[in-house]
């Protein structure tokens, strides 16, 4: 083949491949544009004041996923009418949680070269009090019942050439002093009664008991454990195996969590369980589908969690004691928090 022929072939291919690539980008951009238009059959969303100390009764805050101009904003609905109109706050978060007048909002910052992330601590009117850079893609966020401590977990994929080996970073902040524990992996680990070191330790999914004690997941050597953490002594102590994304009940006696169940398919390994911390007895909930979320306690006996839905995800609810059936709480929502 002559040099000219090769160059002609190359040029033709560049044009063809360029057209395919450009077409894909334009198609995706058009689709992105559609997501900003109000969804006809979706929930009504209007702007308004959203407060963490609601005057008119108990309120559920969620990240609104319904298509339209308020997609991804934190929105409020009365707990009695979750399908009703949503009040959008104008604050966009990927992950969100709030308690006692303090909220934590994990946001993406779209830079020129790449995305970065930050954790923003908000006051009762969702105004920024403090911000911290976050090390990776946000996945979990929690505020302690008093509103004094906040914690968040992000994914990092450490080394760009390996690329696919995910790990997590969990940070914890005291909002009274703005002291930050950048990486809970530096806490002392006590596993089965003995000090434990390993390079592959990962921590995620903090849930607070009070302003000192918390629970979280610790993973090492291919296993996961429920750990009890102590902020004062900087320790993590293993309590129970095969527990991910724990969520402590309001009375502090039970942990709702994701359990890897034997026999489940590799792409859907988790079921929603509840662990009694006094007896260490596990109870399967009536939700039989694969759960990949840190559940939330709506009250003493009800769990709320996200499942994939038509617009990202929907919120579902199931009794914590293994009875009843799962039912859908609201569509197009994720990252719930109950206030008031």
């Amino acid at each position, binding site marked *: 083949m002559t040099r000219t022929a090769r160059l002609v072939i190359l040029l033709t291919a560049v044009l063809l491949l360029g057209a395919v690539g450009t077409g894909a980008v334009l198609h995706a951009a058009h689709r992105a544009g559609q997501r900003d238009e109000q969804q006809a059959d979706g929930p009504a969303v209007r702007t308004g004041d959203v407060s963490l100390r609601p005057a008119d009764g108990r309120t559920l805050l969620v990240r609104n996923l319904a298509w339209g101009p308020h997609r991804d904003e934190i929105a409020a609905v009365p707990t009695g009418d979750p399908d009703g109109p949503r009040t959008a706050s104008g604050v966009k978060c990927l992950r969100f949680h709030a308690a006692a007048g303090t909220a934590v909002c994990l946001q993406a910052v*779209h830079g020129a070269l790449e995305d970065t992330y930050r954790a923003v601590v908000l006051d009762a009117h969702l105004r920024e009090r403090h911000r911290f850079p*976050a090390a990776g893609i946000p996945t979990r966020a929690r505020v302690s019942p008093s509103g004094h401590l906040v914690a968040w977990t992000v994914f*990092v994929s*450490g080394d760009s*050439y390996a690329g696919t080996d995910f790990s997590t970073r969990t940070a914890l902040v005291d909002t009274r002093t703005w002291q930050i524990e950048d990486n809970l992996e530096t806490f002392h680990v006590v596993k089965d009664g003995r000090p434990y070191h*390993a*390079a592959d330790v*990962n921590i995620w999914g903090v849930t607070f008991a009070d302003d000192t004690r918390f629970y979280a997941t610790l993973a090492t050597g291919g296993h996961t454990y429920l750990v009890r953490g102590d902020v004062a002594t900087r320790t993590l102590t293993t309590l129970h195996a095969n527990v991910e994304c724990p969520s402590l009940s309001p009375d502090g006696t039970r942990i709702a969590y994701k359990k890897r169940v034997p026999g489940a398919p590799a792409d859907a390994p988790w079921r929603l369980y509840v662990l009694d911390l006094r007896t260490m007895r596990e109870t399967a909930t009536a939700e039989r589908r694969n759960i990949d979320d840190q559940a939330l306690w709506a009250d003493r006996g009800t769990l709320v969690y996200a499942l994939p839905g038509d617009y990202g995800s929907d919120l579902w609810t199931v009794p914590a004691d293994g009875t009843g059936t799962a039912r859908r709480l609201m569509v197009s929502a994720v990252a719930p928090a109950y206030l008031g």
Partner: protein
Amino acid sequence: MYLADSRSTDSRATRSAAAPDTRPGRRPAAVPGTVLALGAVSLVTDVSSEMVTAVLPLYVVAGLGLSPLGFGFLDGVNNGVGALVRLAGGHLADRGGRRHKTVAGLGYGLSAVCKPLLLLAHTLPVLGAVLAVDRTGKGLRTAPRDAMISLATAPERRGRAFGVHRAMDTTGALLGPLVAFAVLRATVDGYDAVFVVSGCVAALGVLLLVLFVPRRITPDPAGAPAQAGPAAAPPTLREALGLLRRRPVRRLTACASLLGLTTVSDAFLYLLLQRAGDLPAHLFPLLPLGTAAVFLLLAVPLGALADRVGRRRLFLAGHGVLLLAYAVVLSPWHGAPAVAAVLLLHGTFYAATDGVLAAATAAAVPARHQGAGQALVGTGQALARFVCSLAFGAAWSLWGGQRALAVTAAGLAVAAVAVSFLLRPADEVPA
């Protein structure tokens, strides 16, 4: 034992590459066109694969809504199967009158096909399978590609040629994430668009290989008498394995493996650097970029230096630089300058060893076994590094990260001394 070395039949390349380069200040001789073509193929392919790598975590978490916590879904495939595939790729490429281009093309093609397949992968196991096939393609093409670079380049220019190739390769790796995020920005989370563009770029890489890399990169007939007569029959597997009976090959493989056993993986080094230096967690993703940038800048000059002072000597010196990097991590010197110093040393280590080892291998292996030879030495080193990772992880659990590194550093020092004795005999004549 000095083996017949190969010359490119590309007359332009041979003439320029073989031209004496003695006058100081004279512009360095150009690298053969085949090497530039292979460099371009690698650059384009790395843009494609690093595009995917850059957005994959985001795609899994934000796009698919999955949590891949503790899901190291490539580890096993990466190392065990990867090594076998690499050996097979190297050997197959040598058979049938050197099918390097065919086998490399198969490898590049396999990876290219995986990019659009990512559009169909919505669960972690399927995603893991597609990525494993992608990685298989990479394993298949590595040895034939390095063999082609060896065969196309005059022996005294190989250090520089591999340096140019590695620099182009790293350029692609650095550009990939930028292209990916530009597409994501234009499409607001259009991961499918990223995969389609990545697939188009990968297809372009395969096309560059098909159009601009010659099918037969035969060495200069005068320099390779082995090509005449019955010896021209395709090398058998036994012959390929018999490469280890040659002292230079055995020595080089042993040395690369010995040093590989004490080479801590990038991930561990960055983790230690972050812990020791109290580096803010959000700066962590920048560490690999630092290493890559230094590698990119120094690959060509250090490759050229290797041609002058001897590849083996520079390969050893590179590990001395790595030892310095370990020392800085272990020292009480912390803060941003210390981190920068470690990344500078780490990038220099790669620039002084990665392409340089391939160039040293080329000189130790006969032309008809270039593929198998490159695969053998490269796989030995990769497996040794994998063993080091396993041991290092265990040592970390036992003693903590700092002490594990101190022990590894001591091991590296001992290995370097041993290697300096093993490599001292002139298996290779520096140009």
